[in-house]
């Protein structure tokens, strides 16, 4: 009986707005799984939780901000990254994480993604990629595989999808990884690394959408998707991102693909202004200036 008295709390609960649980995500959806990994990463990265800000756009993954008991912002569709840009620049002490979906970040928000990566602003971008617009009922996304059925491609998708890791690397991201929701420990580790890394980090999480992707494409439920990921994933850390395009008919290449250093936006800004203005430069962040 003594054991009962020491039952610890579920480690994710300290990060959740428990009065809002149960959440709205479907049975077998992978977003909650990714949140578990994020909770573990927050613990292990030892970041100051009062300085963490979560920014989401719109969509199923866009609801993550609303469940996390941190400073959290549910913004407009596609604009989580520019909102995060304002947050970070106005208070560089914040650790700013953008947590959103593939449609939000790469269709309506695609322009902001490449520009934030180009600037190398110190942000962590977590993209739950369920290959579809789920919240609105299963429409084709810029990540939907060729020939997959969606409510707006009833005869199969005929647009090639983005290779997100390659896009991120080409645009300038300093950290790029992809995991599926099956790879919980690796994903948590990547999230921790991204939280502790300076610069623009990007993590893609391939995740089941049992209701609007698996079912319409006769791929079973969430558990079937997880078994599929287990069976078809190949871990290739350091793989060239040009070789990791997601293709439902071949292996899913997962791993940490990019981990490099580039000067961050705040760093280059302070450097340039200090060089041109000297002592006249009223640096708002003294530490970064020297």
């Amino acid at each position, binding site marked *: 009986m003594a054991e009962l008295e020491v039952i610890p709390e579920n480690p*994710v609960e300290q990060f959740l707005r428990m009065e809002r649980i149960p959440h709205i995500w479907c049975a077998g959806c992978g977003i909650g*799984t990714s949140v578990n990994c994020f909770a573990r990463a927050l613990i292990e990265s030892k970041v100051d939780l009062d300085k963490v800000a979560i920014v989401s756009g719109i969509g199923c993954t866009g609801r993550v901000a609303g469940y996390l008991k941190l400073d959290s912002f549910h913004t407009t569709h596609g604009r989580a990254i520019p909102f995060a840009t304002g947050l970070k620049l106005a208070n560089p002490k914040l650790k700013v994480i953008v947590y959103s979906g593939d449609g939000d970040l790469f269709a309506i928000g695609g322009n902001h993604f490449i520009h934030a990566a180009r600037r190398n602003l110190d942000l962590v971008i977590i993209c739950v990629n369920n290959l579809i617009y789920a919240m609105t009922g299963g429409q084709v996304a810029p990540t939907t595989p060729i020939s997959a059925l969606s409510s707006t491609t009833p005869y199969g998708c005929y647009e090639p999808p983005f290779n997100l890791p390659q896009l991120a690397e080409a645009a300038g991201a300093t950290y790029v990884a992809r995991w599926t929701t099956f790879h919980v420990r690796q994903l948590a580790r990547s999230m921790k690394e991204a939280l502790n890394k300076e610069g623009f980090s990007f993590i893609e999480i391939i995740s089941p959408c049992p209701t609007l992707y698996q079912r319409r494409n006769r791929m079973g439920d969430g*558990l079937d998707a*997880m078994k599929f990921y287990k069976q078809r994933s190949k871990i290739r850390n350091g793989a060239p991102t040009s070789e990791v395009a997601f293709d439902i008919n071949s292996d899913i290449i997962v791993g940490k693909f990019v981990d490099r250093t580039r000067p961050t936006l705040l760093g280059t800004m302070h450097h340039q202004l200090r060089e041109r203005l000297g002592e006249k430069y009223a640096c708002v962040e003294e530490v970064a200036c020297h």
Partner: protein
Amino acid sequence: MAKGSVSIIVERCKGCGFCVEFCPTKVLALSSAFNSKGYHPPYVVAPEKCSGCDLCGMYCPDFAIYGWKIPSNGKPGEDSEDEE
């Protein structure tokens, strides 16, 4: 003597089966009973096999289950990484 244990919050469960499928030591099974939302939650079939690895906790999309290590005589449990 089990090295770990799991807690299940039956009413939060949506019966996805992730925890049962991916438990490395096969501690869990889905119950034939329903929770009040009509889902089949997991239950512990082999408590002695639990290592407390908390993989179930990391997988559970509904925050309805988690595992922990049982300290043996005040000593913290072995931190074994039971990776799939």
